């Protein structure tokens, strides 16, 4: 039995190892021909002329993820608190499956929803042509909500009720007890939910492709289009040859490094709290 568990774990590690190896083996040779600095800080992306600067895409990815977090994290955490501690049972009964459903909707359906509803709405009320960073952020915020809500709710529910009761016994109100006794205790679970959300947002491709405009240049405003790292790879992989193809795999390497950095940062913050 123990062998079976060991085998399963080995398969996982093997899969990660193979992906890492493929990425780095195919992406690093690119840096022998094009400097890392020019690649990461170059502002012009013109592969047909041999110019590979992915800074516009890095900025694009960061901005849409940041926007998604700005919208999604507060809404997600507050919804989780509502569901765990404030809402009546029948309301929770409706919300739980609704959020689970939200998690199951395919990206392309989100993209279509964004294209048909959010883009015209933005165009008519806020200006621009609608295919923008704004819509991409809203869409991503909706996509990461289930992740944040489910993880945060589990974390809040895991806090022993004695915290809440103790706080009430000391004379605090219901709201005060929840926000000052329970939520801080659930902090690490909530943060892990947010980090998972960041991971999903940075990696999202299909939905962004349909609503973000995809201009390969530095973002010029919240209502103008952006291209993210993921979309750049998807749009061009089909026809890339030689150095261009390698540059796209190198983009994958950059994405990988970013995600790893976020994960390490998170576990570092967590470790500090445990040590305290």
């Amino acid at each position: 039995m123990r062998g079976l568990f060991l085998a399963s774990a080995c398969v996982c590690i093997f899969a990660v190892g193979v992906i890492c190896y493929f990425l780095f083996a195919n992406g690093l040779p690119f840096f022998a021909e094009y400097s890392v600095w020019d690649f990461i800080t170059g502002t012009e992306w013109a592969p047909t002329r041999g110019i590979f600067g992915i800074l516009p895409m890095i900025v694009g990815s960061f901005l849409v993820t940041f926007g998604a977090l700005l919208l999604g994290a507060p809404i997600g955490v507050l919804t989780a608190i509502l569901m765990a501690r404030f809402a009546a049972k029948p309301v929770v009964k409706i919300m739980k499956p609704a959020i689970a459903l939200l998690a199951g909707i395919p990206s392309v359906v989100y993209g279509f929803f964004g294209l048909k509803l959010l883009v015209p709405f933005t165009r008519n009320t806020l200006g621009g042509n609608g295919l923008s960073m704004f819509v991409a952020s809203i869409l991503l915020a909706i996509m990461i909500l289930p992740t944040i809500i489910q993880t945060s709710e589990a974390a809040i529910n895991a806090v022993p009720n004695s915290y809440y009761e103790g706080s009430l016994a000391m004379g605090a109100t219901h709201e005060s007890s929840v926000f000052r006794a329970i939520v801080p205790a659930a902090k690490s679970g909530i943060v892990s939910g947010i980090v998972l959300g960041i991971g999903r947002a940075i990696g999202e491709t299909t939905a962004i492709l349909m609503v973000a405009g995809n201009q390969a240049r530095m973002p010029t405003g919240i209502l103008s289009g952006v291209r993210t790292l993921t979309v750049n790879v998807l749009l061009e992989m089909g026809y890339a040859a030689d150095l261009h193809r390698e540059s796209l795999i190198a983009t994958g390497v950059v994405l990988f490094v970013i995600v790893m950095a976020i994960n390490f940062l998170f576990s570092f913050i967590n470790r500090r709290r445990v040590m305290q």
Partner: protein
Amino acid sequence: MKLRSFTALLLILTLALGLTALAAQFDAAQTITVVSREEGSGTRGAFVELTGVLAKDAAGKEKDNTYSEAIISNGTNLVLTTVADNQAGIGYASLSSVMHNDTVKALKVEGVEASTENILNGTYKIARPFNVVTKGELTDELAIDFMAFVMSKEGQAIVSEDGLVSGATDETPSYEAANKSGSLTVGGSTSVAPVMELLAEAYMELNPEAKIEVQSTGSSAGVTGALDGTYGIGMASRLLKDSEVEKGAQPIVIGTDGIAVVVNLANPVEDITVEQVRQVFTGEVTTWDALSK
């Protein structure tokens, strides 16, 4: 939170979101929303060459000067959807796809309507060949027979029914089904894929043991796929580049397609010159009222 107030809130939100795009009058002062395809698209490659958006820069190298603010949509259908939903939109797509589509309007180019007759008689200027790409001569029996079908009278009838201009004459031979079997993957241009699917369907009806799969991945992907063996036959909606021919790619023209310049149905513009098309797609002209006659 009570159930009643929750449902009330939900209803209000739904109503608010429901009051979205209500058709407004076409505003000529609005900025043109230029919709383009991704760089590997055959439609884009042919379009920028035929309209002059592709030009030689100071160093003598060819440069695609498509407007940097142009929205990039990856596929004919996404271009049409984007233009159909945006009053200020303008884009380009294969005529065969636009002919079956009532959600957008194809503009006349220099007074010539985009139609198969006008492509045949050469008056519609923006047209390109639909190519099937193979690596050297075909050796696979099923592929050879399928190509015989495509170039036969029956195959070319399907091609012209779909809106392409066929090169078929009275001398084009008829196809005789030889009950071939096996499987074949045809991949490449998103513009050629629809007509290829019709051809594959018709072929499979005549040869029930054969299995032909059509994939839409883009013209450049079609050529590389044909060269490296991923596809038995590739599809490209543009002329082959010298580098591709050097690697052994051989084109067979199965039809000629026009590229239609499409705008939103609410747009009053009906006619456009090739020079104006170039100006719009390079970003020299950015508003609809600046597009003077």
